[in-house]
């Protein structure tokens, strides 16, 4: 029986510590992991809980991230609660197995501390790894601070393990800005947290020998399509369950989460759509702009990156005139992913506001309040002109000459 861990009502934790405490409280059966900056402290903290008797489950330190996710798949198919953590190159290395985990409908929880992808090698935070996972069939929850990293990790188990979902879940936090910045975190008591997550109820348990199961079968053109369609449907259908879990979480914590978070959107004329810690920077910028210049600025932030909240995004942005979508990932010869997806959503409204795309903050380049203000003001200029007056895609915060692509054809 695990030792009791004493927690204060208010703790000062960084995002990594918050995530590792949530793993401890969820009483995970198997953590199979491999260290990588900046998520290493999650597994180090967990290792210290193991060494000091706070964990009843198994802790398997494998030889690579591919091995970590492979171990998680084997463990999850054996009918228990499973989690791991990674970042960046480690995420890239486990990508093959991410698809296999979701295809086998295994509710593994992966805490991802977002970091840039090489080359050039970079240990700082951007969203390249989160974007790499966007077609992998996982639910992706996004956190803006350490408190949320804790809260979303607990919610992730309850969402993924729901028998109507049965999908793996990633919980994303920004490398260093969230993962290594100590902040106030209000944890739940152990018994409250575990009571919320609940006991793991296995489906197709490899260790139930009264009913043998085959995992990872082959399907060709006769059945593969139907399997992938069902998987997609499960992701789409998870939306209402995510809402339910967030509602239940509010009841025990008082903290309210939505699949799309909105700030100051009630009367907003211009908006930024962003992910991660950038959301908080933009909130400060919007408050100041409202006070200083009377610009009605608001923020829309997908808490749930997958399944993409197409309808909620559309609802949130239906009344604004100009929108900037901020992508913290190198788009590799295209428009940013958030821009593409948000544009597609609002294209199906009558309003069809003006949308531009900013690529920013790559490799941990700082995103300042001043930069957020400049972007808001540019949207205000578009709104006033009734058209996009700049390049549609711009790099923001880049050294050297301006870099931008494509002009509007709307008059």
């Amino acid at each position, binding site marked *: 029986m695990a030792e009791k861990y004493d927690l204060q009502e208010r703790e000062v934790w960084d995002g990594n510590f918050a995530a590792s405490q949530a793993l401890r409280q969820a009483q995970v*059966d*198997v953590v*199979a992991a491999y260290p990588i900056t900046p998520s290493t402290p999650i597994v180090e903290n967990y290792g210290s809980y193991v060494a000091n008797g706070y964990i*009843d*489950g*198994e802790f*398997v*330190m*494998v*030889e*690579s991230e*591919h*091995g970590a996710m*492979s*171990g*998680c*798949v*084997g*463990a*999850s*198919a*054996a*009918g*228990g609660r*499973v989690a791991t953590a990674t970042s960046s190159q480690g995420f890239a290395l486990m990508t*093959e*197995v991410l698809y*296999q985990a979701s295809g086998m409908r295994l509710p593994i929880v992966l805490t991802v501390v977002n970091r840039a992808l090489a080359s050039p090698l970079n240990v700082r935070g951007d969203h390249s790894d989160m974007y790499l996972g966007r077609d992998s069939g996982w639910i992706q929850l996004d956190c803006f601070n350490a408190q949320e990293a804790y809260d979303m990790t607990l919610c992730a188990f309850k969402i993924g393990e729901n028998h109507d979902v049965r999908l793996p879940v990633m919980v994303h936090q920004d490398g260093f800005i969230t993962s290594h910045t100590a902040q106030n975190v209000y944890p739940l008591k152990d018994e409250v947290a575990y009571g919320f997550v609940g*006991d*793991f109820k296995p489906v197709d*348990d*490899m*260790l*139930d*020998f*009264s009913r*043998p*199961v*085959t*995992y*990872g*079968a*082959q*399907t*060709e053109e006769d*059945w593969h399509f139907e*399997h992938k369609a069902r998987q997609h449907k499960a992701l789409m259908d998870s939306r209402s369950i995510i809402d339910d879990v967030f509602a239940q979480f509010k009841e025990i914590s008082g903290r309210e989460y939505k699949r799309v978070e909105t700030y100051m959107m009630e009367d907003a004329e211009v908006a930024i759509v962003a992910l991660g810690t950038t959301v908080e920077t933009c909130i400060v910028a919007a408050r100041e702009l409202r006070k200083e210049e009377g610009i009605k600025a608001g923020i829309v932030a997908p808490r749930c990156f997958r399944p993409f909240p197409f309808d909620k995004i559309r609802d949130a942005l239906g009344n604004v005139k100009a929108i900037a979508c901020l992508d913290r990932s190198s788009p590799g010869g295209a428009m940013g992913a958030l821009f593409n997806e948000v544009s597609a959503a609002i294209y199906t409204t009558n309003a069809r506001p003006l949308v531009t795309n900013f690529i920013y903050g790559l490799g941990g380049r700082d995103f300042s309040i001043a930069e957020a203000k400049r972007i808001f003001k540019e949207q205000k200029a578009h709104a006033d002109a009734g058209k996009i007056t700049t390049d549609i895609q711009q790099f923001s915060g880049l050294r050297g000459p301006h870099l931008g692509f494509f002009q509007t054809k709307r008059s």
Partner: protein
Amino acid sequence: MAATSIKNLKEFSTSNDRFEGAHTLCPGCAHSMIVRELMNCTDDNLVIATNTGCLEVSTAVYPFTSWDTSWIHIGFENAATAASGAEAMYKARKRKGSLKDNDASVKFVAFGGDGSTYDIGFQWLSGAVERGHDFTYICLDNENYANTGGQRSSATPIGATTTTAQAGSHSYGKKEKKKDMIAIMAAHGAPYVAQLAPNKWKSMAKGFQKALETEGPCFINTVSACCTEWKFDPKDTIGITDLATDSLIFPIYEIIDGHELNILYRPKNVIKVEDYLAAQGRYKHLFKPEYKHVIEQIQKDVDKQWEMLQRREEARI
């Protein structure tokens, strides 16, 4: 451990049919003999992980499965890790009392071909063995990537022709020698390592039982003659395997705790490797006069290895 009786082949072969005959392996493929033997040598529950390869693609094509036991396939390289994860989950759930039957006896087994064992899954296997999981890894060694049409692997022996190391007017096939996986796995300190062959079915069953009984990670390399890529008549699988073991190209032996070597089969009449090579299409080109030196080299290597194994056995270190 509930070991089954292995006195009588007929009785043994039908003792515990958990591997269905309905699969799509080639007629004459030794894989199914080896798998069936493993599954028949114990009455314990089995959790089996399998790397991508001939065995996997032939036994779990939706909506069918040949496996009347828990079975998982993830990818080409990670069956050892899938077994590790399942074994770790078993320990955790047993400790917490959350298993459906907390007293059920279970063994964890991983299968891989030589491509997934010697090449692409080498790291995953090495990691799982280093971590000491209680499982048995069985390599079905047919010395090539047979599932994808017969490409060279690092288990392909020198002189064999494969689609990616072809014999031709300027080539005698693969130039490099086979990797010694048994020595590598023994060097990991695995408590039980062996090379076994399905023609010596009793020693194979005993070896499997020993591995399953042994706590910790065990590795067994099995000779799996491949009629399709070695190019021989499917009815001759066991005959070819006899030539393999009796020419000592595939010696049958075990290594306990990384050092104690025991030879498990000593042919009464050792035959020349030439006789083994001549029985297979993949070595046909070696019988041209210009490649005589390759056959001589193979014989020399086999003699040297047999000498080494005997000396190691004698030394008891």
